[in-house]
């Protein structure tokens, strides 16, 4: 039985928020690929995720992982109107910056920058934090995400109104809520089941 905490290999841990590619090192034993059943493999949804120690660890509860993955994909990838992908990623990045998840922030800052082409603004959010001035529309999305991430939540009608004034319709506001809420889920798994590390050299 493999019920022990894993020792971290000697790797450089990031000490700043970054858009650079990071690795994630598990603190608990992921399922071994050869030990995975059909049910475990199906729970990954994307077969390529078998390479990820994070997903092989979560596959220990396959029903929860599979449903979580489908929830994630629809919130972020559903192309039917609502909030543009770049701004769903912005909400994910702002939530991760506020909660302090360097790994999640790195992944979604890359996506936010790719889809928005606003690398400078994304870097400002990472460097200065959630009070950075990114222009009113992005400020409204960041402020809504941060209010929702507080525990207890501080999100209220004033955030909805500010998003409406910034030009978001109700489907787009619902997308902000879901993207931000979802990263309160993701951040807690990533932060507590392992740690980020600089990528191993080639």
């Amino acid at each position, binding site marked *: 039985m493999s*019920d*022990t*905490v*894993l020792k*971290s290999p000697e790797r450089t841990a*990031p*000490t*700043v928020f970054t858009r650079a590619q990071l690795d994630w090192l598990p*603190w*608990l*034993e992921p399922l071994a690929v050869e030990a995975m059943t059909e049910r475990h493999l199906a729970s990954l949804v994307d077969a390529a995720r078998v390479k990820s120690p994070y997903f092989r*660890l*979560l596959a*220990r*509860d396959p*029903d*929860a*992982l599979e*449903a*979580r993955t*489908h*929830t994630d*994909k*629809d*919130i972020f990838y*559903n192309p*039917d109107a*609502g909030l543009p992908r770049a701004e769903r990623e912005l909400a994910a990045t702002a939530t991760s910056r*506020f*909660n*302090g998840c*360097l790994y999640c922030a790195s992944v979604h800052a890359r996506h936010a920058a790719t889809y928005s082409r606003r690398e400078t603004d994304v870097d400002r959010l990472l460097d200065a*934090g959630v009070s950075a001035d990114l222009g009113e529309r992005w400020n409204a999305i960041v402020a809504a995400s941060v209010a*929702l*991430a*507080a*525990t*207890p*939540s501080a*999100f*209220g*009608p004033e*955030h*909805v109104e500010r998003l409406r004034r910034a030009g978001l319709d*109700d*489907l787009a506001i*619902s997308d902000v*809520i*879901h993207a*931000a*809420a*979802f990263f*309160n*889920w993701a*951040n*807690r*798994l990533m*932060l*507590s*089941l392992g740690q980020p590390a600089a990528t191993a050299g080639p």
Partner: protein
Amino acid sequence: MPGLDADVIDALVGITPGSPLDAIRARRPQARAQAQATYQALFAPTEPGNVSAQERFAVGAFVCGLHGDTAIAASYADGLAKSGASAALKEAVEAATAEARAHGPYGRYPAGPLSREDDVRPSYRAGAAVHGMLGPRLAAAFEHAHMLVFHPRDATQAALQALLDAGWSTTDIVTLSQIVAFLSFQVRAVAGLRALAGRP
């Protein structure tokens, strides 16, 4: 509490068929159905493994209580009662919630430039009375859940070791972590949609 088949987020927000928010949620059908499927996987699992229904709902009531959402916490407390929990366990969950309330997120960063953003506050340790009522396994789960809810960036390998020492297996810890993390989503989806519906 809504039955396990009714959409929990819809029920907690008060979304009725044909309402504007019903139409909005229908535009993201997988997000809606699979958030519900996650709820079922975690609170009515087909293969519960070593984590009992009482443990799942006790953690659920505690986590929602820490979020200050009395309506959602009451629905999980109802689930706890239906799982056959003793009056003492229900009382222990309420006492733990009362002694563990805080405001988050807080915590430390890895030493370096981000240290200036450190907000160092204590970890929750169940008081003697609560610990006695919960027992060591559930007390360890509540202590871990408090960290996940309020200061997840303080997570360490030692916190996982404490769960292993209290009898949680690696797979149990994955399920426990999913319960707390999922509820961190569900509570916020409900809070956000309530505000969008003009029903804060």
